[in-house]
């Protein structure tokens, strides 16, 4: 049989990345998923060719050191009969401490890739050594600024961007035992804005102790949808949430 015509299921999974495992890189996490899926024994589809690999599709990279409540990946299975329940059950006990699958959906054929579909992310940023009042003032300055120029280096070249259009929301959150939380919503298109860039965009520069992505959103016709809600195969409605 031509493998291109073999029955396939594409499952979108949501997972957490918490605790010390947050210091692994995006590449590390991809390898962790490959090994964990092999341990489940589920029929994950493989690429063709010289060096076959599992067909996994990851979304927006999470910077090394950041935690997340809402990471996503799409997995292709070489079976038309997969259910989300079956996949989530098989993953229990095979993922390392700190990574936990929290939901999934069967995708309709031709669903947009995660990287392109997600337009904004919510961030929870814990800052050290700053009082709530001072942070509120800082937030006002950021929101009031006409432009927020940030410079980054890419392949040895300095590139300057205006971050202001990417700051979709910003507010002071609850105090913590070590400092204060800053809640931010940042745009991802055409390039995902990083919380570290936001913190560097306005004096005084605050020191984050923990940064966590709390949600990723797809904006569609003015509504915000979770990636599990978009592209789900209409007939199945197999959205499973554990959150």
């Amino acid at each position, binding site marked *: 049989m031509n493998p291109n015509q073999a029955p396939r299921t594409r499952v979108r999974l949501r997972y957490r990345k918490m605790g010390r495992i947050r210091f*692994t890189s995006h*590449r590390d996490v991809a390898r*962790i998923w*490959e090994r964990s899926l*092999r341990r489940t024994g589920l029929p994950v589809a493989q690429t063709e060719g010289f060096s076959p690999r599992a067909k996994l599709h990851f979304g927006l990279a999470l910077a090394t050191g950041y935690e997340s409540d809402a990471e996503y990946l799409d997995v292709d299975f070489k079976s038309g009969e997969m259910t989300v329940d079956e996949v989530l059950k098989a993953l229990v006990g095979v993922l*390392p401490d700190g990574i936990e699958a929290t939901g999934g959906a069967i995708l309709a054929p031709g669903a947009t890739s995660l990287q392109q579909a997600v337009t904004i992310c919510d961030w929870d940023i814990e800052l050290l050594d700053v009082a709530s009042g001072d942070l509120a003032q800082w937030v006002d300055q950021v929101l009031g600024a006409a432009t927020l120029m940030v410079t980054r280096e890419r392949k040895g070249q300095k590139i300057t961007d205006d971050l202001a259009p990417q700051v979709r929301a910003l507010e002071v959150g609850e105090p913590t035992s070590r400092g204060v939380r800053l809640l931010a919503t940042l745009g991802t298109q055409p390039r995902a804005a990083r919380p570290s860039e936001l913190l560097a965009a306005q004096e005084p520069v605050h020191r984050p*102790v923990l940064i966590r992505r709390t949600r990723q959103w797809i904006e569609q016709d003015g509504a915000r949808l979770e990636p599990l809600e978009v592209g789900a195969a209409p007939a199945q409605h197999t959205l499973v949430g554990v959150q």
Partner: protein
Amino acid sequence: MSLWPELELVLPDVSKPARYIGGEGGMATPEHHPSKVAWLLAYPDTYEIGLPNQGLQILYEILNERDDSVAERAYAPWVDMEAEMRAAGLPLFSVDTHRRAAVFDVLAFNLSAELVYTNLLNCIDLTGVPVRAENRADDDLLIGAGGHCTYNPEPLADFVDFFVLGDGEEVVSEINAVVRDWKRSGKKSRQSVLRALAAVEGVYVPSLYDVAYDGPALVSITPRFADVPAVVEKRTVADLAEWPYPKQQLVPLTEVVHDRLNVEVFRGCTRGCRFCQAGMITRPVRERPAEQVRTMVADGLARSGYDEVALTSLSTADFSGITEVVSATMDCGAGEVSVSLPSLRVDAFTVGLAAQIQRARRTGLTFAPEAGSWRMRQVINKLIDERDLYGAVESAFSQGWRRMKLYFLTGLPTETDVDTLAIGELARNCVELGRAHTKNPSVTVSLGGFVPKPFTPFQWFGQNTVSELQRKVFLLRDDIKRNRGVQMKWHDPKASLVEGIASRGDRRIGRVIEEVWRQGGTFQEWSEHFDYDRWTQAMAKHGLSVDWYVHRHRTEDEVLPWDHLSAGLHKDFLWQDWRDALNEVGLEDCRWTPCYDCGACTGYSIEHIVASATPPAGGSQGTGQVPTGYQPPAAVAVQLSGVGARNSA
């Protein structure tokens, strides 16, 4: 207890922070207790290099299985992390539970390479205990070391409390019992625990020995007390089947070298290559039963999720029934698991084996002819015929490989430029063989500078100078640079020189290692941190001659810095083998031929454990004779016309 709250503040600022988080699959979560000995097992190089170390993982499991010990792991922090740690006042820590090193009872290092010696000093310093053993308080951490480099521990004798020679599986529990008693009695006297450790077979406590010199010459190393052994014998595990470790190989969260399942199929090697320290000090050959190998592979793959397994040993193609074991391994992976055989002898690499290992995915293929000419290979006793090499290369190309790596040494005893240039000819012939199967065959020649090692027949040989090694490297490079399909890589001859200083150095070299470390010379095995001038300047500062330690030929009657240690090998056997080498006389593999009494079996009343009484099929099997009925591939036969003539000369 845990330093994690402080560590997580510095980790965002260092490169590859996942090196420091632990959390691997198979990690132990030990419960420390005053009645248990706490071991911190350390590898004095980066996490990526150290994590896969099988010796360390075996001891980690054995100690965590015992009810009177716990073990955690530590690795050398990279330079950026070390700077952050020193700035924040953070000590060396375990990656398992992030405890500070000082709360452990023993800090035990695995020593696999000489260039990490300065890292060992740095790790000790980061624990907060004095770097010199003589300055330590009664209840300070005990510093131990094991691994191949401890067959000449003298350069580290001033810094390490005890060394262990040989296999660690059994002796680690005996050491644990001694330390446990010392801990339970309140760690009152360091001297008493060191004396008790010296009584354990295989343990060497350097501070209990006096060293005498006459000018530059070493005169003697003798025990200071009657109950301390004059000669420390290595430890050998008689039967590998009793030690199916690691059972829970660690599965790291971040990328490391050898990132795959590793199953040791046998220990020891009697091929008798005269340059190879590992082959001399790990005798005799002890094969793991094939059935146990299959179980360890199947369980390990299911547990880890790896899709690659390496069957490890010093020469895996020599394993009895290797083709069947590889075939069974491929079957249990349902066609998605690849097998790599890291040490392959060309005379045992057959078409059948090549066909098996390429079923899932072709892993890299490295052969080690070691020398370019048959004369040179007789000197080093690597008795593989050119036809063996071409047969193996032909097998690989015919099974779809397009590139391979050939490993050679230069700077070998009696080597002439004819021998060096013969490497180029071998490589060219291999590429020609490949053209029958692929448009762009590629052969990479990897050239290392030979460093003589203790307990080998070449321990008396004067190492080539840096300029001589460099000259030979460039000679070969210029010879092959016009050949399409042949690439060349080489090791820095200056690094070989520093390795030579430590490899056969005596106790006085400790001052040089300390000097280089104090000047910031860590990670010397990393080319971006290696500093040759620091080493030569430190040698000069302490009045020690590089020429005397490295380039001088040693004499038969000379006292060697490791004469008070024993790997079982008779010194007169080694000397005879050295004379045989100079006379270009080869010596056959004793696992399939009668014993010639090197001492490794007879001295310890043990013997080879080999399932097959005959060598695996194929090749000349170290005899240099092509067996009856052996059919070289057609393409080889054409190539051989010139080569064969030189062989018989």
